[in-house]
């Protein structure tokens, strides 16, 4: 079984602050991390390989420094990694196109896994776009994946119902964060992962011509979070009464 996992280098949203002077988010210096839900996709890939055999390859777009961020995925148990160089301009379609071409270059794939969305932009586009470019079946929001030799059965979580889908290979599956708890590699695994290959591929090596964005970001503004921030202090009964009175004044009751 050949499994390819798309793992995004995403901005660590918990480190993003809003500049009070400009009202814009400060993105400079915000660390990049492998998107949480993509880690669940890597974990799921490893579990499928443990059951069915095969190989797990991760694919990431990023600068050369991103290798350090990919190593933990190899330590978790992925066999190989691909790092595609960052394009000058990017939008959802460019990212999906680059990943699709890299997936084709890895070749011979059965299952492509990715997270339902990335923690920073949460657009959820890349999985279905890759499936669209490759023109293969897709299953999104997977909460359970049962892989067999020639097919896979997936539970798709739609919040109010579960849709059970069966597909042969190749298939693209996007997973929810709830599908599993990604393992923490031990020291031994971390050391061994140093020997695993990280292939660095340039955009030219994927044989793609010029990529022009179909969507452009024209501005980003911070969302104002003006709250009263009043902390009521004192004995429990006092603060509770004060809060009840305040809520009454606010017209809640």
């Amino acid at each position, binding site marked *: 079984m050949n499994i390819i996992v798309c793992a995004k280098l995403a901005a660590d*949203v918990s480190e993003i602050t809003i500049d009070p002077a400009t009202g814009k988010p400060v993105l400079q210096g915000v660390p990049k991390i492998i998107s949480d839900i993509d880690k669940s996709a890597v974990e799921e890939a490893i579990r499928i390989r443990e059951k069915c055999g095969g190989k797990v390859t991760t694919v990431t777009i990023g600068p050369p420094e991103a290798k350090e961020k990919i190593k933990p995925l190899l330590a978790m148990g992925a066999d190989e990694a691909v790092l595609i160089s960052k394009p000058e301009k990017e939008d959802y*379609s460019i990212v999906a196109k680059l990943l699709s071409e890299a997936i084709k270059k890895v070749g011979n794939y059965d299952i492509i896994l990715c997270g339902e969305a990335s923690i920073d932009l949460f657009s959820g586009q890349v999985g279905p776009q890759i499936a669209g470019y490759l023109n293969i079946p897709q299953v999104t929001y997977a909460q359970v994946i049962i892989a067999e030799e020639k097919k896979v059965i997936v539970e798709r979580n739609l*919040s*109010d119902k579960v849709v059970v889908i069966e597909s042969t290979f190749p298939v693209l599956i996007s997973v929810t964060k709830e599908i599993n708890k990604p393992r923490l590699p031990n020291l031994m695994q971390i050391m061994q992962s140093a020997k695993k290959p990280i292939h660095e591929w340039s955009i030219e090596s994927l044989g793609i011509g010029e990529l022009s964005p179909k*969507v452009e970001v024209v501005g980003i503004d911070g969302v104002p979070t003006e709250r009263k921030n009043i902390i009521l202090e004192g004995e429990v009964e006092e603060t509770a009464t004060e809060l009840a009175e305040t809520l*009454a004044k606010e017209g809640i009751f």
Partner: protein
Amino acid sequence: MILIYSDNKNNSLELLGKGRKLADQVKNRVLAVIIGNAGEPEAKELIAFGADTVVIAETDMEHFKAEEYADILQSIINEYNCETVMIGSNKNGKELAPRLAARMETGCVTDCINVSLEGEKLTVERIVFSGAAISRQQFASDIQILTIPPKAFYPPPKDEARTGEVIKKSYQPNSYASKVLRVQEMKSGDVNVEDAEIIVSCGRGLKKKEDIRLLEELAETLRGNTIGCSRPIAADLKWLSEDHWIGLSGHKVKPKLYIACGISGQIQHIAGMRDSAIIVAINRDSEAPIFKSADYGIVGDLYTVVPALTKAIKEEMSS
């Protein structure tokens, strides 16, 4: 032509609200699509709400599937020269739109909370960074595909006198190597956090499932019976069903009053409740980030604060 499609009726009407306005601005027409075996009355209703043309795409498919639905929409987009395609942003719409965009090699933006024309350019806004920022994006492609979440726009007024064209046609999508085996309804109560006016919400500060009772008493006193929760309570501990789950990957709520009990206030939780009118936080850690997102905070053990608050509110109400 502006095409609108959602498999959710209310969402379709909201899309018509926005679609109609955009169309009127540039003297364009609105085409609404129903996939499945709908009848004339359903189509007529979409016309009354602003559609000029309704295409009922008849298929023998029993369930939604993005692959086949994308093929059907692609045929309709080509047939009627649609430039702007607005799709309802539930989980089906969110997997349909990007697939369609890739099949057609065109631009797509999901979860647009605002849509406008700036000059010639279709400009949209979407929330990024877990709700910390809003990104404005412009399409550079001839065909623009966007998804729109529920309640982003108002349905237009209904006008029974409006007339339009209803076209029934059967479509044969390509066949794909995947199929729906079954659909299971998930068990859920009658909770609808998205419409609730008062929500009392719990997080990992709660020690056991039975203690939810404390919050229910507070909620009942406030005459709002709605209990919300953070992700771990629904996803990991499963003390409450997923329809109570609030946040980035849960429900987005905007009640008059949101009381967060034992919730730390990570940005992914805030993303779901930041539009609440008044936010109250009860947490024993004075450094908890929830206090930065709250109007009123009480630093203390929820096991003493919540019952005291219930009692104080009862007294306040009867005074």
